[in-house]
Every structure is written in C-alpha cells, then in structure tokens.
C-alpha cells in the first residue's frame, strides 16, 4: 500500500472508533444501560485513580495505583452491572429521581492499532470527556478529564476491554459518582 493509502486507512479507523465512542455516550445519556453493558467485554477493567498534588519531578506518585491502592473505581463487568441494576431498582436514592447527564467526548486520538490499522483487532484510543450532571432542581456537576480506552474488535463492532479514567480533580467536587465515565 502507498503511504497515502495507509493514512486513508488510519483515518477511516479513527472515524470508526470516534463514532463508536459517540454512540456509547449516546447510550449512557439515553439511559439505555443494557445496550451499554453489551459494549463492555466480559474481562473489562474499569479504573479511575485518585490524584495527588506532588512536587514537580515526582509525577510518578501523582496517581494512586491500580490493584494496590484505593481508587475512585477499580472494577470489572460484574460490579458495573450491579451498579446498573442498583439504578434500575428505582430506590437508589442517589439516582432517584434520575440525573440528567450529558457526555461530551472529544479530542479522539488513535494511539495504536494492533496488529495494524488495516486489520485492527485492538486499538488504544485517548479522548477527553466532559460530563455534565444535573439532578433534582439545581444540583449540577461538571467533570472534565481524559480517558484511555482499549477497544477490541467484536464482529462488526467493538468492545471496551479497558478504560482508564483520569479526572482532573484532587478533592472530588461531586458528592458521589453514581454515573459512568
């Protein structure tokens, strides 16, 4: 393939991945949780570290570590499913009445396609998110950060195999995290 073809293939893949991420956001915002859960691979790792203020040069200590430390989230599909089920009880008061949520997904960057863009079976992709949550009357949260996803080819579609969520906050400014990133 020519160089030009390579770039074209990569562009198509980036477009496909971005569309996938937008569609995923749509499912969450429309509260179509069943369809959203179906996009998660059975072995998904969903991880959101906490962040410390550290001295310049000590960045290695900025994030809490997965598996060893306490994090905001560090779990898999079973417990994500339970979280959905909890909302669906209709008596999970932190989400009852349900919040109004909008996921803005942007700056989608294809980081790596494995084994290649033309035959991608796995892709790692970065993006920015802005999650707007408004609930009851005036209660409003805006959470902004980065996401690093690993997506896996699944027939004609993709599944999310890993999601690292980097929230740009130290003290969490929201009283809870009852929604998905």
């Amino acid at each position: 393939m020519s160089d030009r073809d390579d770039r074209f293939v990569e562009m198509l893949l980036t477009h496909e991945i971005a569309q996938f991420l937008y569609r995923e956001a749509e499912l969450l915002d429309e509260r179509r949780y069943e369809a959203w859960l179906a996009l998660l691979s059975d072995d998904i790792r969903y991880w959101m570290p906490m962040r410390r203020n550290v001295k310049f040069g000590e960045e290695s200590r900025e994030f809490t570590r997965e598996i060893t430390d306490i994090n905001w989230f560090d779990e898999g599909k079973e417990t994500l499913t339970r979280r959905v089920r909890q909302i669906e009880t209709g008596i999970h008061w932190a989400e009852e009445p349900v919040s109004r949520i909008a996921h803005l997904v942007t700056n989608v960057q294809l980081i790596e396609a494995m084994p290649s863009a033309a035959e991608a079976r796995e892709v790692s992709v970065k993006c920015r998110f802005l999650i707007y949550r408004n609930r009851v009357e005036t209660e409003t949260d805006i959470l902004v950060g980065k996401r690093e996803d690993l997506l896996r080819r699944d027939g004609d579609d993709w599944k999310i195999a890993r999601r690292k969520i980097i929230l740009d906050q130290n003290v969490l400014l929201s009283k809870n995290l009852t929604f998905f990133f």
Partner: protein
Amino acid sequence: MATAHVGGYRPGLVDLKTGQISREIFVNEDIYAEEQERVFARAWLYVGHESQVPNPGDFFVSGMGEESVILTRDRAGQVRVFLNSCRHRGMKVCRYDEGNTTVFTCPYHGWSYGTDGRLVGVPYFREAYHSQLDRLQWGLVEVAQTCVHKGTVWATWDKDAPPFLEYLGDFARYLDQMFDSWDGSDGGTEILGGVQKWLVPSNWKFPAENFSGDSYHNISHRSVDMVGAGPSGSGRRDMPELNLARKLHIAIPDRGHQTTAYLLPREVEVPAGYQHSPVVSDYFKKCEEARRQQRGDWGRLITLVGEVFPSMAFLARQPRTIAVWHPRGPHQTEVWRWFLVDKNAPQDVKNFLRDYYIRYSGPAGMTEQDDMENWGYAHKASRGTIARRYSYSYEQGMGTEVDNYEWEGFSLPGSVTDLTQAKSSEHNLRNLYRRWAEFMEASDWDELASWRRAQRAAAE
C-alpha cells in the same frame, strides 16, 4: 418548639429531656462559627496514620476542623503537627498532599521552616531585619498536644485537654478493634495507599450522627442490599452472626463517643462470612478463633460503626475505614477517608477487601451514595425560616439504656441499649449531641472533664 434563628447557640436547642433537637444547630451560621471555637479548637481530632510518615522528613498534609495542618516526622524521628500557614503573611506553606522534605519553604516571601517547625530561613535576615527578628518566636504554630495511638495520630489545639487516652475513657476498649488486627494482635493494621477526599453538601453533624449509630436508616440502603456490592458477597451487607448475636448501642456519656456492636454468644460457633471467597472466609474464620482465644469475652465483641467525638468516624468491620468530617462552612463538609487492612493478611485477602471497600464506601460506594443524598437534601430542606422552627425528633428508645449491661456473664462498660428486639434506637445519637452541647456551653476543660470532678468528689 419555636426558635427564631437570631443569635447563636443557647441552652435548650439540644433538649434531651424531650428528645428534640433544633435544626438551628445544623444550619445556623453563628452556631457554626461558635462550634469552630468551642468544639474543634478544644477536642482531640484525628490527623492521620503514622505509616503515612514512616521516615524523617516525610509529611502528609491533613486537616483539623477548617484548618490545614502538616503531619510530619521531624529529623529526630518525632511525629509533629503544625498549622499549615506561614507566620509572616499566612501563605499555605505546603501545598503538596504528601512527600519528603528537609524544609517547608513559603512560596510568598521565602520564609523557611524545618520539619521541627523552627523558622530556619528568613530572606535578607541581616540586611532587611538587621538580624533583629526573633526567629524562635516565629516558628510554625504547633498543636498543643499530639498522641500516637496504635499507629493513629491525634492532636488538639487545647493544652488543657486531658491526655488522649483519658479523653477516650472506656471507649478505648471498643476502639481497639478498629486498630488491632482481626486476630486480636495489638495495632496490627495498616493503611492502604490513597486517601479519598470529597465534598458533601450538608453540615458535618449529619454524617457524624449517622456514623454514631443511626441503625434506623437501613431502609435507605435497600437498593444495594438487593443487588449486592459484590463481586462474591450475597445480597445483604449484614453478616450471618446478626442472627445469633446481641446487637448493641454503646455510648460513653461523659466522653461523647459511641458505637454499635455485636456481642456474640459464648458457645455457638459463628458461621463463616464471605463464603464465595474461600481464602477470605478462611482467613476470617482463623482470625475469629484466635481473637476469642486471646481476648476471652472481649473477643466476642465486634465493634461495628462508631464515632470518636466530634468528627472521627470508623467502621471497625468491613469495610474497615476511618472517616473524618472536616467542616467547610455550615452547609458543606469535606470528607476524608482512610482504609485499613490487617498488615499480616494474605495479599488475596487485602485485594478482596480493597475492592469491597471501594464499592461500599465513598463517592463511588454503592451504599454511601444514598447516605450522602439523604444528608444533602435533609440539610437543604432544613434551612428555611419556617423549617427551622421545627425540631427534629430524637425520641427513639429514650430511657431504655442501661449502665452495667451484662449478657452471658460479660458486662460492658458504658451506657448500653440492647437493639436485638428493639431493632433500633437513637441512644447513640443523643449521646453525641449531649456532648456537643456540653462543649458549646462549657467554659473550659475543667468543666468538660466531669469525670475528674466525680473522681475528686469520691476521693474526698
């Protein structure tokens, strides 16, 4: 009881004869300002864990009430607690959450303090101050007293406060379970990395009373009980011994500390919890046996959720956590959360518990999310002029508490309500507010340390 919300605290807002407490104490700004002075500036407060500052020069920035403090281990190896504010013009001296340092240097004009708090560096000391500044007078403000208790670090701004163990009184026995390992070994716990910090839109006393033993609010957690916090636990958060044990409210009236607890029967073997995870189930079973052997009757007691007056809460059972309620104005609280595991537990057990902790507690905790929703909207709905006229009811189980509670030949210190039949009581909550009112009214520690007067009287 109608109470106009002019002015601050006055006796009667906490009326334990009728079991009514005015909403003013939660939402009134004057009362809030007074309680910073009368409660937070006089009580012992939880600052952190020694394992967060293992080496000289290590520091962890913590909080006491509204204020930022630096917990550090000085060059001589001693644990110290300082106000995190420069003496020159108040700049926050340390804005890193943790680390290791030789000096705390103020970014504003460059005053620099040693880890022992001494002012060691003053820019242009010779030129601008003509070597006249008395540096000894201008070290970081240090707390009046510090105490390291089973790895936990406590401090108070009041030099007249009694020593920490006296402050705990009989509660120390109950609190042991929080810091000892599950098999009963002394102080055998460690902190998992990472302190959760988040904001809750309610007065700090809402979480404080909830953790004091609000055994009535289980209904609010029904959604998590239905789906389970998983991955391998069954639906209920309660453990099987619930059916065999006495469930108790235990309060130490003259100190203001309180906890809920299970007292297990002497002979019956307790069915193992965590059946879905054999490693964990096994570990707890072994520990349970060891604890009973080592501690005798006290080994039958399982401390659950409680509160050291005023603002340190704990869950001694799983999820084993320490929470501190930092007031951020009358209408907001910053919660800090530490999680503990047995130092000697197998890694698998630590991992299992850590996962469980995160799913249970904190902002992403499937249980606590509902608590915070309730505290926030309870607070908000209590702020109005009309709402404030109507007290809250704390009448549940009034007069049912006993001193010298005894079961199967084991008697417990403190004032105890047996909830086994009653299901619930607000005994512990009343205990919290009794002490809170005493702090608001007492002029000094001589008055607050009522047990000392009783001891003196007995001696005469």
